């Protein structure tokens, strides 16, 4: 009773309390914001400045050269190959992760024996360190004793080992496979949660109307799941576009430039090639695409927050 009567005078006292809240609000936020300014804001500005300079590792002098780094890159054929690679890599990986993640989420949504255990096992590829996942697949792909080649050769299916990582065509498929293996649980777990928030009455109504499995999926499941799918897909795309470890460790971007992506190119140009300014410019050129993705993502998240 005391609670209920107390809720009446709150609005006016809350308005009266606002300035005090504001002070505490900013205060609590301050450490985090300060850290972000120092660790994200400042490096970002430094990066932009660096990209406009001819800055090399080991040299103190960094002459301002304006947009030269960018122009050189945009006119370099290799750069566009790398752009194509990263789009292919991210595009196919995310699409596969979405499809597989949805399928697994749908399968896990039904009650069944050992569902909990199966669900726990399904998270494992995502829980493992990326490095571990990459090393395991590197070993499996190996043309010297790796299990894929050994089994294929042992059963006589092939005569010589398949060069999963050094064949120009296969290499991209191989790295995509690892990314998908590692990343699909993120989709399946999130989509499973999304599935469980689709009201079951909608399904019952559809069943009564005579809708079969496929029709129910298309008209009840998909619309309900679409917002979550959008958020997860956009998030995963952003992260996949930035992935470094998988490609670097498996192929170093090779053979040639076949699997080079913007992140590995940045490393090669800036750290290996000692051209810091140019290397940073490579990453900055990724920003337009990222901004588009981020704007889309923010819109979908806000829609979710309003609806939920």
């Amino acid at each position: 009773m005391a609670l209920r009567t107390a809720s009446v005078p709150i609005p006016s006292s809350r308005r009266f309390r606002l300035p005090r809240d504001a002070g505490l609000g900013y205060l609590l936020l301050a450490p985090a914001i300060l850290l972000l300014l120092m660790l994200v804001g400042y490096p970002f500005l430094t990066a932009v400045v660096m990209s406009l300079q001819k800055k090399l590792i080991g040299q103190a002098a960094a002459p301002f050269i304006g947009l030269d780094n960018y122009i050189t890159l945009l006119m370099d054929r290799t750069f566009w190959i790398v752009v194509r690679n990263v789009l292919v890599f991210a595009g196919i990986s995310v699409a596969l992760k979405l499809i597989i993640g949805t399928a697994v989420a749908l399968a896990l949504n039904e009650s069944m024996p050992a569902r909990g255990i199966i669900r726990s096992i399904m998270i494992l590829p995502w829980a493992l360190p990326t490095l571990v996942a990459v090393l395991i697949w590197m070993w499996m792909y190996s043309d010297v004793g790796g299990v894929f080649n050994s089994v294929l050769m042992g059963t006589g299916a092939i005569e010589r080992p398949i060069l999963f990582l050094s064949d120009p065509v296969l290499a991209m498929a191989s790295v995509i496979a690892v990314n998908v293996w590692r990343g699909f649980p993120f989709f399946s777990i999130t989509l499973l949660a999304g599935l469980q928030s689709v009201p079951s009455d909608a399904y019952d109504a559809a069943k009564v109307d005579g809708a079969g499995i496929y029709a129910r999926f298309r008209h009840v499941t998909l619309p309900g799941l679409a917002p979550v799918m959008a958020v997860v897909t956009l998030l995963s795309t952003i992260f996949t576009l930035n992935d470094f470890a998988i490609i670097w460790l498996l192929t170093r971007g090779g053979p040639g430039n076949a699997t080079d992506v913007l992140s590995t190119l940045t490393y090669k140009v800036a750290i290996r090639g000692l051209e810091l300014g140019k290397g940073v410019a490579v990453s900055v050129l990724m920003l337009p695409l990222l901004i588009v993705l981020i704007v889309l993502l923010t819109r979908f998240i806000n829609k979710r927050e309003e609806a939920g």
Partner: protein
Amino acid sequence: MSDAIRVASARTEAHSFAGSLRRERMVKLTLQWSVLGTALVVVIFPMYWMLLTAFDPPSLSYTSQISLLPKRLTFSAMSQLLREYDFLLWMRNSATVAIISTLLAVVVGTLAAYSLARLRYPGRGFLAGVFFLAYIFPATLLVVPVFVILSVLGLTDDYIGLVLSYLIFTVPFCTWMLRAYLTSIPPELEEAALVDGATRVQAMLLIILPLAAPGVAAATIFAFTLSWNEYLYAFILMTDSTKMTLSPGMTKLVFGDIFLWGMIMSGATLMSLPVVLLYFVAQRFVVSGLTAGSVKG
């Protein structure tokens, strides 16, 4: 007469409805088990292969005769790894860096999250967006300037430099995740406390924090995992073998022409143990935490 026909036709309809339901159930089960069966094999086999290689390491002669089952079990690869490389040092360094950055991120993040979730002030929405942006900001863009800045400060090859680098993503991540979690806690509880005369801070510490414990636990686990698994910054910043974390350390094992897979897989197994254990112990938190940002409620 018409009643009997009506009942009969209703019964036929019910039968065919039940029949189609049963058929549907069969189709569903088949689909379900084929998907899960394939997925389980694909998920489990690589991990099984890692363990098999670690405890039944292949001989250097790489005969193409390969068995999918262990012929013997031995710790020889693992002990060789621990003897010949600074593996234990790497592990200790990974743990140190992960624990420190996690603690800092969770503390700072919880305060910031509470502020963003509960208090009102101009610019709140914008500031919340800033954290999200910071989290998804491409690491590849930041790593070069961070490397340069830390070099100037003399903090490369130093765990402090790495901790600072990890705060770049752990702080925004914890803030974002905890904010989503805190907004799902009904505000009535605090309001009641405030009316009873508690200060905001008291309400936050005594009421909200205990309630938010699962969310904080999830954030802690995630942040630890992010730091433990991190590759790019560790690889670029740490070059001294005694200061390295596991990521660059393990990379040392795969550079060059001869790969000693037994040792590498032993290292991989050891590196996975802490995070896998964490996930199994705290699964519920993990799932709820993971979905807090993407799915509401």
